[in-house]
């Protein structure tokens, strides 16, 4: 046990060891069913407004698209081994960078939204810099605190930020909700495509290598700090972008949408869905946001019991989240399938 020294006082597996580039290695034929399901889903979602136009479910779906991107952006940060508990704050920076000029200077949303995204990226990268030397639980605690500081600054901002009540009167982008639906949907597709591209690119593999062992990564010439900051900047760009669109959609920006509680729920989306899989965050948002909103909303004050029960069930029965479980099942099925065809697989 010569590597005992590099394990921190608390021996915590922050990001589960997934084989580097495991998914890249999947054969094309195995990806086909997945792709067709995905295509069908995109098609259904694209056509959905024809059916549910002007209903509450549209609002929920718009929120879902936002949170899928935000949760996915958190996961992108996490593949580099960083358990970042400040993602809500990055979203908040994006939102306020868009809301403040919109409310006080009456800038057009088409200017403020990119501004929010850029501001979140820059601030995110700058703030990530001092924390990039921290690892594992130290990083988690440091960023948790960072998020708290950002929210405190927003809350102490006086009239400019509207303090803890929030900033109202942010100009809407469109008057028709259907446009928001397509905007959010489009942004989600583009963002997910970017993230997919990154995760399975060389940079993504490098990030995963850093997550597994920063020493090994360093020994093959992967710059740890650079790649980690890149991951945070990349993640906070999408978080900031979505935060900005989100506040224009809601018409308000309020600190408690971006505080520790909000961040923890975003993380819960990812953990419930499965942190090891690209589609985990989307599934998690579906499980924790869409299902309670669609089916349990009438429970009102008792709704938290449902979400708590979902969390407990997943924690007890699916250590790798829902997608992890599905993967385990399909693996087992396909192994049995293959065993019938080819015998004597090498271990």
């Amino acid at each position, binding site marked *: 046990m010569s590597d005992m020294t590099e394990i921190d006082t608390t021996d915590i597996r922050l990001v589960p060891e997934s084989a580097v580039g495991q998914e890249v290695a999947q054969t094309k034929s195995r990806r086909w069913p997945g792709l067709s399901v995905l295509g069908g889903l995109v098609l259904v979602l694209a056509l959905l407004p024809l059916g549910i136009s*002007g*209903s*509450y*479910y*549209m*609002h*929920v779906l718009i*929120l879902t698209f936002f949170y899928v991107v935000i949760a996915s952006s958190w996961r992108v940060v996490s593949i580099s081994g960083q358990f970042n508990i400040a993602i809500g704050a990055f979203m908040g920076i994006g939102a306020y960078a868009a809301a403040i000029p919109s409310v006080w200077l009456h800038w057009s949303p088409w200017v403020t939204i990119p501004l929010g995204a850029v501001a979140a990226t820059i601030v995110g990268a700058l703030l990530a810099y001092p924390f990039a030397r921290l690892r594992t639980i130290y990083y988690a605690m440091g960023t948790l605190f960072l998020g708290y500081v950002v929210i405190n600054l927003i*809350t102490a901002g*006086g*009239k400019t930020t*509207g*303090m*803890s*009540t*929030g900033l*109202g*009167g942010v100009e*809407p982008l469109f*008057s028709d909700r259907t446009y928001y639906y397509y905007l959010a949907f489009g942004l989600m597709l583009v963002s997910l495509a970017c993230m997919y591209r990154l995760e399975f690119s060389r940079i993504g593999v490098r990030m995963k290598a850093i997550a597994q062992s920063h020493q090994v990564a360093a020994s093959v010439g992967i710059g740890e700090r650079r790649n980690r900051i890149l991951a945070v900047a990349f993640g906070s760009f999408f978080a900031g972008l979505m935060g900005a669109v989100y506040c224009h959609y*809601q*018409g*308000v920006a*309020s600190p*408690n*949408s971006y505080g520790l509680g909000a961040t923890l729920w975003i993380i819960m989306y990812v953990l419930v869905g499965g942190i090891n899989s690209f589609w985990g965050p989307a599934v998690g948002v579906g499980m924790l946001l869409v299902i309670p*909103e669609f089916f349990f*909303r009438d*429970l*009102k*004050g*008792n*709704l*938290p*019991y*449902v979400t*708590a*029960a979902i969390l*407990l*069930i997943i924690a*007890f*029965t699916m250590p790798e989240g829902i997608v992890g479980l599905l993967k385990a099942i399909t693996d087992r099925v396909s192994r049995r399938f293959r065993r019938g065809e080819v015998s004597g697989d090498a271990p």
Partner: protein
Amino acid sequence: MKKTAWVSVLMVLMILLAVVPALAGCGKAEETTTTSAPTQTTAGPTPTTAAPSSTETTTAQMETLQIGVILSLTDWFSVVDAAEKMDIEYVAQMINEDGGIKVQGKSYKVELVIEDGKSSLDGNTAAANKLVLDKKLKFVVGPGAFFNLATTPIFEQNKVLHVANYNGLNPAEMNKDTRYAFLGLDPITQQSAALKALKLYYPNVKNVALASEDATFPAFEPHFRALVERTGLTLAGEPILYATQAEDYNPIAAKIKALNPDAVWMPIGIDPTYFGIVKGLRTLGYQGPITFPVDAPSVVGALGDSATGIVGILSKQVEDPYIAAPMKRLLLMGDPKRHVFGLAPNALYLLKHAIEAADSLDPTVVRDKWETLTSLPTLYGDGFPSGNQLYGLPNHAWAHPIPVCLINDGKVEYKPWILPDVTP
């Protein structure tokens, strides 16, 4: 295999743990307040559950009018709104017992559609969307406090008449363009009662220290300053602001004490903050009167012998000899010892009378009529418009007589209700 057995047993336990309170909670909503008042026997014969069954037969033939209600039933603001939910349900029941809302010779039974605002702007947006888009409602009561920031644009866009319980004076909540926004109680007027009562019962008071929660205060500040001046008082030092989520209010109390004011005025906050500061001030030996919106039994219960020299406004108790009839009726509909905030119920009550006055179920017609009204019944007696200039809207914000009580040495003394000054 032993492991899996364990896990399944655990799962069942967990689900039970989650489901049992949920089910119990559904059934026991009424009892939440009775539990906090052990002296239930003094209430007298007040059937809590018998009433709806008797009215159901009479209202069975009536058509129903769905009215949306947004209240925060989870998270921090539920301290206020969970109680409001019960009372607004009682008011709906009261209206139905009286034959519902009468429009053009027809009676409509009120059916409340309550949505959880989750104590956040996001949650309130979702709730408003649900009411407007899904339920297609035309009349909505609530939300309270600054949550209107989130809901006003949605209601205005969809031309839904909405009556807020109370608001944060932010222009985005109510301004000259929000023609469908009404307000059950103008917050400035309400506070004028506090200062008037203070002057009345403590004539020696010349200056007051203003202590307020900081987030909504900037919007209120000029109005509060004007109000102090109008009442013939002065402010002792600068206003003292504190964070909504502080744990220890003793530093605030020490700061107030250091100003050495004749009286202390706390216009904005929630109970925990008020109590914390009063407790701190009394411990420090501050003797002057303190005024803030109270629920008399809660104050006595939470503050014990620190509850002295308090000029309380807005306490609603059956034993108050000056209590307005509708309010007394509301109190007697449940456990009369419960804590009644009485803002959302009042908004519903106002809305009912406005609809009847307009004799229409079209929100635009109701709005146009309402803008011409100068008097409407409220739960607190005759209401009157206030703050027309402040909001830039005619007769959109309302006020009414304010209950007043003095609390000394843990004993409550009820005083005649005060008619507050109209806010310009």
